[in-house]
């Protein structure tokens, strides 16, 4: 969920690690705020970001969407800034700004000429603790987030399907509640709800400052101490303990029907561990497994279902390696007309069974590892994506060292690691299968 839509898509793809380590410097301020500086001196541009270790999964039950709502409200006034003045000031300095909320984090950023960095720090540190809201802000902005929900979710049956499926996936963990919130709870979000979340989580000891671009660690440190370093730590910051999932012992299935669905598909998800600090090996094996099964045209699901059997339009796999708590490993199949969802699902399961029987194609694994290596080089072209990578990692329980070790951890994954991870993972008792389809039992024929 971003404050507005322009840059949202870029965040869906978590590129793999990248930068020569000497371009990254990290340190901590006395009040506990972490700072990461990523140098790229090719253009005199800086990206300034404040990340908070709190997202929608840290909300209190009953106020779903408040983390994202507060993100919008942070663009209202402070003691020294009028409502809207923050973005207006960024714009008057030729910069762009935005913000985004996810399950595990909320982040604010500006892209500006590097010589405007100090002004950004001054304003961002100000709204960390000096926000001023009134009832008028609440009502109008609540309508904006309801329209955002309309646009992202309610107008899109695939998004509604994903939302319902998430709720089926997580019985107890807040990953089962949409980031943007359930509509009925969003409608009654109040000023107190927003301020309560703000007071609990917005403090320097719960934040990470990331500055990337044409900057030096020394100048960032001097400015960070001046603006962020003077904010006292919040001694009452709660420990980040969330309700965790109970063991899943029964397969779950769901069907989502909507007359707007023109292309039905199947999504199967399995609960899976995410990257853990100092122990990323299992997650690395799952990343490679998802590439092998559904990473592209040469992946096993596409080889078998798109090319050999010609049953699907597309097949894929996805694994959310970055998450604070347990995540999911997903399989997708999009059948061709005339192929039922049951047939598509059965064919998908046959491919998984075949894989568990026959194992990994070593040549394919070598190609995937070569691409992962190359992606480190290409990623250096986009310092903002590198900044995002550190921001996500550090709000999801990882360290700078974990981020920097990750490419080597990926390269070190063996065939045995992948097979062990696959055998652990593919247990139907720990899965959710969702069908997205039109109203009728079979996809409707639509003509223009």
């Amino acid at each position, binding site marked *: 969920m971003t404050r*507005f*839509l322009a840059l949202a898509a870029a965040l869906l793809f978590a590129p793999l690690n990248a930068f020569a380590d000497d371009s990254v410097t990290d340190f901590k301020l006395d009040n506990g705020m972490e700072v990461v500086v990523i140098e790229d001196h090719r253009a005199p541009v800086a990206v300034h970001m404040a990340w908070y270790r709190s997202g929608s999964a840290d909300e209190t039950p009953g106020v779903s969407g408040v983390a994202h709502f507060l993100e919008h409200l942070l663009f209202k006034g402070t003691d020294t800034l009028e409502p809207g003045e923050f973005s207006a000031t960024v714009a008057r300095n030729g910069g762009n700004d935005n913000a985004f909320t996810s399950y595990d984090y909320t982040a604010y950023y500006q892209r500006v000429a590097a010589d405007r960095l100090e002004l950004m720090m001054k304003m961002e540190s100000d709204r960390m603790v000096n926000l001023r809201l009134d009832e008028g802000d609440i009502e109008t902005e609540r309508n904006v987030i309801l*329209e955002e929900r309309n646009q992202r979710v309610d107008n899109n049956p695939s998004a509604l399907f994903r939302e319902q499926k998430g709720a089926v996936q997580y019985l107890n963990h807040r990953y089962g509640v949409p980031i943007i919130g359930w509509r009925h709870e969003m409608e009654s979000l109040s000023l107190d709800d927003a301020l309560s979340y703000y007071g609990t989580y917005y403090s320097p000891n719960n934040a990470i400052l990331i500055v990337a671009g044409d900057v030096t660690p020394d100048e960032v440190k001097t400015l960070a101490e001046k603006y962020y370093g003077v904010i006292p730590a919040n001694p009452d910051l709660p420990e980040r303990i969330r309700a965790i999932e109970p063991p899943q012992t029964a397969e779950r299935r769901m069907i989502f029907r909507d007359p707007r669905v023109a*292309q039905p598909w199947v999504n199967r998800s399995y609960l899976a561990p995410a990257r853990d600090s100092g122990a990323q090996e299992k997650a690395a094996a799952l990343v490679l497994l998802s590439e092998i099964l559904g990473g592209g045209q040469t992946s096993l699901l596409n080889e078998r279902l798109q090319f050999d059997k010609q049953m699907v339009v597309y097949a894929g796999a996805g694994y959310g390696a970055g998450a604070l708590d347990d995540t999911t490993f997903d399989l997708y199949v999009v059948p061709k007309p005339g192929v039922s969802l049951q047939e598509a699902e059965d064919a998908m399961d046959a491919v998984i069974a075949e894989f568990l029987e026959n194992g990994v194609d070593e040549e394919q694994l070598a190609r995937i590892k070569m691409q992962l290596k190359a992606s480190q080089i290409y990623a250096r072209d986009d*310092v903002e994506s590198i900044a995002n990578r550190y921001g996500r990692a550090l709000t999801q329980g990882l360290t700078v060292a974990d981020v920097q070790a990750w490419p080597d951890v990926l390269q070190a994954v063996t065939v045995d690691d992948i097979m062990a991870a696959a055998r652990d993972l593919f247990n139907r008792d720990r899965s959710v299968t969702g069908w997205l389809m039109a109203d009728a039992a079979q996809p409707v024929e639509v003509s223009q």
Partner: protein
Amino acid sequence: MIRLVITLWATLIALPAMAEIEIKQVTSPGGINAWLVEDHTIPFTALELRFRGGGSLDAPGKRGATNLMVGLLEEGAADMDARAFAKRSEELAASFGYGSSDDAVSVSAKFLTENRDQAIAHLRASLIEPRFDADAVERVRAQVLSGLRQDVTDPQSIASRAFDKLVFGTHPYGASQDGTIDSVTALTRDDIVAAHHGALARDRLYVGAVGDITAEQLGKLLDTLLLDLPETGAPMPPAADPVFPGGTHVTDFDTPQSVVVFGQPGVDMTDPDFFPAYVLNQILGGGSFESRLMQEVREKRGLTYGIYTYLADRDLADFWAGSVASGNESVAEAIKVIRAEWQRARDGVTEAELNDAKTYMTGAYPLRFDGNGPIANILVSMQMMGLTPDYVSNRNAMIEAVTMADITRVAQRLLDPAQLTFVVVGKPQGLGPT
């Protein structure tokens, strides 16, 4: 034999708040022109190719042929079938993107320095020797048809298509370059081969390259990659004659939020009033939070998540368009506010609005030049617009030169509430179909 291998002009460009970038104009030994920015920091090159024409070159009755053809370029070439081609791409760790739009076929390539020659040989095969195998055609056709079926029930697609049809009629711009379910179903391999010969020709080619490559290396590379393309392609279609009837046109569709596309006549980039109009658009609805429409429709009234307008400077038509989405119960009010703002903008803007827009636009411009990929894109777009390299250093001065009088004159000349036409898809309340 002594021969001039590369002809080369270099323009040093000083951007405000930005390191100098040096755009070199390169002509390969075989006569292919390109713009190059050398930067040896990262060992890869971003190469951007554009072929003018794109989907608008589709022959009558063959709508979607160019789009399907482009989708097949990476599905088998030379001695490789689709799977062999994909495996080779993975081995090289090169990234090739192929796309088609109303105005151009685009090829976006990134390749490592360490295996540049092999990567270029591979890219060459896809451009010069695509196979269009029968099984690949059917597979990709099924993917295109799947997308077209989804468009039929997607309010955003329904709105764009309804707007294009209303405004551009039977001109190629009046129908999606993806084609229709019927037209794509009927396309034959011969149609696809014809689309390939028509669209990928050297007489409509533009090249931008940025990264770890010298002018001489680029020249050789371009000859290898492109010299075997046909010299000429299909004739360009005529310019469109857009018609904006005004009013609000509703397409009934059962969804909670109405999607709105609106527009009126625009202005060509060569028109002396273009820059004032560009600044005026920024103030009216240019996508930032400070625009009048964002302030009035979102910030003050909470009627939408986002609203923006843009000057569409397309090859075959100019228009001024925008987009908004609002709940069925509030969309009528959103449209009322937009109409009122359109009218109000005819009176001009305040000095503060003009100054703020200028500082934003001039400050944000250099921030676009922040990586090999983005710069390669800019280089090729500039060539397609007929600009010279010094545009990069002059552009901000043209923004700065816009006066209050310019804005008022242009607002009076161009903003036309009577022609401002709205297309709405949804179940809007208080808006009857017209």
